[in-house]
């Protein structure tokens, strides 16, 4: 796995070095942008949902799109339009809290704090972060996972942001290698350890009411997506670690360690239930709505009742194609296509009928959909 990473790194290096001739958009397929709204300083981005896009490699051109709730308009580059300037980085994730949206720019090691409704920039954090990934909030504090150096397995940490001053505290919480997503429940933080450049198989639990003491839960390899079900269980998707790959250029994962969906009791930190995928099969994206879980397998999204005992209860999939991000709300499934040099396609599916009901182009490398 590491060697593959190394190769990727190198390939990317060379690409960026020759970047002159690189960043050319190839429209394999024209996707209509649904009518845009005209952005003025008074525009309120309220009531709809947002799509964040990582941007083109090395171009630091991550962007955010806004879709009105009635799906009548999609407006791209809204931060740029409001503030007259790019965010200037790869948008790793956005966390919404109170009046603010906290945008993490991974490559720029920057947190940009913006007004969630007007999208005006309010503050920025430029020091104390190193490969920041995700943020979760408890009370007046934001907790931001950081890889440190991606290849260094001993420098991962959680930075603590004072939400009242928008400044980082000087103390940090050191964690094991490869911190990724972070979610909160009551006084507890749960951090999945996907493994950064290598691999890991734990979820760290930080008890903020107990001097930030850390305990760990062992799950399957490369845990990433996490969410809570209605009954309060923490659901963790472990992608499994690739152990054998197809050749260049795709490096398709031929063999991998076990991929699984684990259900954790957040009071006891015990795994209540674990759904294990078939050998060498795995999923990388997970969503939840109305009591059902949705996971991506290949080019399908598959529905399963969260109460099921194992994956055999999976239902027939919805063909979504090659997706890079997914979310679900009520009866709708939202996906964004994997596209880094062309605009990504946002598609909305009606779950009961399994049919696509909406499509629009959104930013390059779109990766996440936020309903907050």
């Amino acid at each position, binding site marked *: 796995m590491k060697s593959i990473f190394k*190769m*990727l*790194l*190198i*390939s*990317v*290096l*060379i*690409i*960026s*070095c*020759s*970047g*002159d*001739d*690189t*960043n*050319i*958009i*190839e*429209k394999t397929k024209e996707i209509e942008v649904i009518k845009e709204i005209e952005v003025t300083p008074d525009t309120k981005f309220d009531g709809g949902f947002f799509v964040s896009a990582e*941007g*083109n*490699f*090395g*171009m*630091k*051109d991550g*962007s955010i799109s806004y879709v009105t709730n009635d799906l009548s308009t999609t407006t791209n580059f809204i931060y*740029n339009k409001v*503030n*007259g*300037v*790019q*965010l*200037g*980085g*790869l948008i*790793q994730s956005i966390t919404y809290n109170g009046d603010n949206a906290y945008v993490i*720019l*991974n*490559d*720029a*090691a*920057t947190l*940009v704090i913006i007004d969630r409704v007007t999208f005006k920039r309010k*503050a*920025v*954090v*430029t*020091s104390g972060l190193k490969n920041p990934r995700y943020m979760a909030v408890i009370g007046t504090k934001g907790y931001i996972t950081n890889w440190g150096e991606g290849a260094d397995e001993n420098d991962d940490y959680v930075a603590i942001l004072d939400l009242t001053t928008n*400044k980082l505290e000087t103390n940090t919480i050191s964690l094991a290698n490869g911190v990724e997503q972070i979610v909160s429940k009551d006084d507890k933080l749960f951090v999945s350890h996907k493994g950064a450049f290598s691999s890991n198989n734990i979820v760290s639990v930080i008890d903020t009411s107990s001097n930030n003491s850390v305990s760990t839960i062992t799950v399957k390899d490369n845990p990433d997506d996490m969410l809570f079900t209605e009954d309060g269980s923490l659901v963790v998707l472990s992608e499994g670690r690739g152990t054998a790959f197809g050749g*260049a*250029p*795709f*490096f398709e994962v031929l063999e991998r360690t076990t991929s699984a969906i684990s259900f954790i009791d957040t009071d006891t930190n015990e795994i209540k239930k674990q759904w294990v995928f078939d050998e060498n099969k795995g999923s990388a994206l997970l969503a939840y709505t109305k009591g059902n879980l949705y996971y991506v397998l290949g080019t399908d999204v598959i529905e399963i009742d969260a109460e099921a005992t194992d994956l055999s209860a999976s239902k027939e999939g919805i063909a979504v194609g*090659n997706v*890079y991000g997914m979310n679900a709300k009520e009866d709708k499934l939202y996906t964004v296509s994997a*596209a880094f040099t*062309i605009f990504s396609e946002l598609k909305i599916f009606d779950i009961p009928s399994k049919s696509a009901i909406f499509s629009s182009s959104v930013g390059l490398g779109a990766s996440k959909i936020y309903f907050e």
Partner: protein
Amino acid sequence: MKMYVASILGMVCYLKSVAQNDSIQRLEKVTVHHNKDKRKQGQGQKLVRLSTEQVVRNPTNFTETLRYNSPIAFRDYGNGGTSSARFRGTSATNTAVLWNGLSINAVGNGQTDFNALSASTTDEIIIISGGSSTTFGSGAIGGVIQLNDDLHFKSHQNFQLFSSYGSFNTSSNFFKVNVGGHKLALKVATTINRSDNDYEYIDTRFKDENDNLLKNENANYRNYGINTSLGYKFSNTNKLFFYTTVYRSSRLFSAGLPNPSSGSERNQDFYQRNLLKWDTKFLNFTQSLKLGYLTEEYRYYSNKDAINFDLGKSKKQVVDYSLIYRLSNQWDITYFMLYENTIGNTDTINRRRESLGLGGLLTFAPNEKTIGTLGFRKEYNSDFLVPVSVTLTGEKSIFNKFKFKTSLSTNYRVPTFNELFWPVVGNSELTPERSKQIDFGFNFTNKLLTLSGTYFFINIKDKIIWRPIGTSNLWRPKNLDDVINKGFEIALKFNFKVLKAHKFSINTNYVYTQAENTKTGKPLIFVPLNLVNYNIDYNYKRFNLFAQGLYQSKIYTTEDTIDFHSLDVVNVMNMGVNILLYQKKNHNLVLGSKVNNIFNKVYYFTNLRPMPGRNLNVNINYKF
């Protein structure tokens, strides 16, 4: 993983750089009838010559020198970053740079970094617009830049010391010694340049945590070069030359906006170039034999404090031979042969390439006012087939004031080591880019004015483009595109006097470039439609006042041509004064001062890499 790849990219994409400012003048080269070595002179093409005297106005780096004095557009990442040329809208690999006649484009990526080159130690910079692969081989599509060292076989002893110091602790210096007699000539030149390069980003749309403007952190650089040339004249027809140059550079790569404090990259460049040249004449033959040995190395540290670095190294052995036979007063035949043995190493590549180029040139000059050439070149390359390149040129003078020039040529650019062999994504099936080109131009010269205009048309087929593989994050080079670049270059030099003592001169370049990917119908990225630079001088007795400027129209940074991926118009101006403090016999001492970006404009040559605001330097130029 997705993020990982992208973040790495973010870290590494620094390869370009910037410049500060000064001015220069330009002379249209008049091709001398029956010049010794016609194949070096850009027959039928537009040719601009810059000298050291002009370089001192823009001493910070070579990018800056060319940006204000040549028709070439540059994409750079600031003074400490890397810089690449886009000559007539062509890509960085389509400009060939030659040092005393040897190609010095990097073996790995086929480009030249114009901020990692000690151009201030050379005596003469010649810029030839247009295609000339027949003469210069791979990469001579957009144009050619020659860096030449002069050796004179006459009794002389000349020294020149230039030193400038300015804002951001920036210092650029060189010292040149030219001595010689009738038999022996020696030139030694050294240059040392450094800068903290920690200027404030004057773009107020970006602020730091405390609402202050950001600074260009992690961006300092220092470099030095030594250039030694030695010539010995056995007789008027038998001369031996040896040239050697060594260069060392260490620079930090800024992270740029929005968070320059996150920068941690460092890059070191080293090169050594050696050339032995033997020129002889006998009967009606003129021959030149060059033996070259060139090495280069870079070390890239993603973390400047770490021990680990990525290494790239190359060695190149060159045998370059030309023989001119003068058939008559009107006809010349030139035969030439270029053998190159190139070894390229990185952490993961270890490759050797051999190439042999053979060609000939027939020159016909029926009278002093007319000259035509027909040439071809065939290269044999151990890695792939290279097409034959052909050139047909003509020049005709009329009334001693007009000269018409035309050139038809086919040219090529061979795939680089990186494109072919990079692990995983290298594509061993690449073939050379091929171009067909037309130049048609005129010169007009009288006492006051030199005006040249050149129309150009370039069609490049099998353009090598990096594209993502399927929907993956891996990019791979392919012979994908077909591009057409067309437009015109205008150069004007105008001198006049007012009341005898007040002298004015205006020197300007204007380039109009329409560059389009014919497959997508989109304009090529980083190509300005309009590019203007100018130098205006006013001289009165010992006093000189000058202004120089650059205008570059809006450019797109990706082919989607949306404003989100564009850079605004650049319109920047510098002003300076020079005072001749002391002049006696061979002594000439000039004290100068210059304000760069005098109107404190925010401008960019690469996204998120703001250039410095108003800044100052003082300099001294002493020739003795």
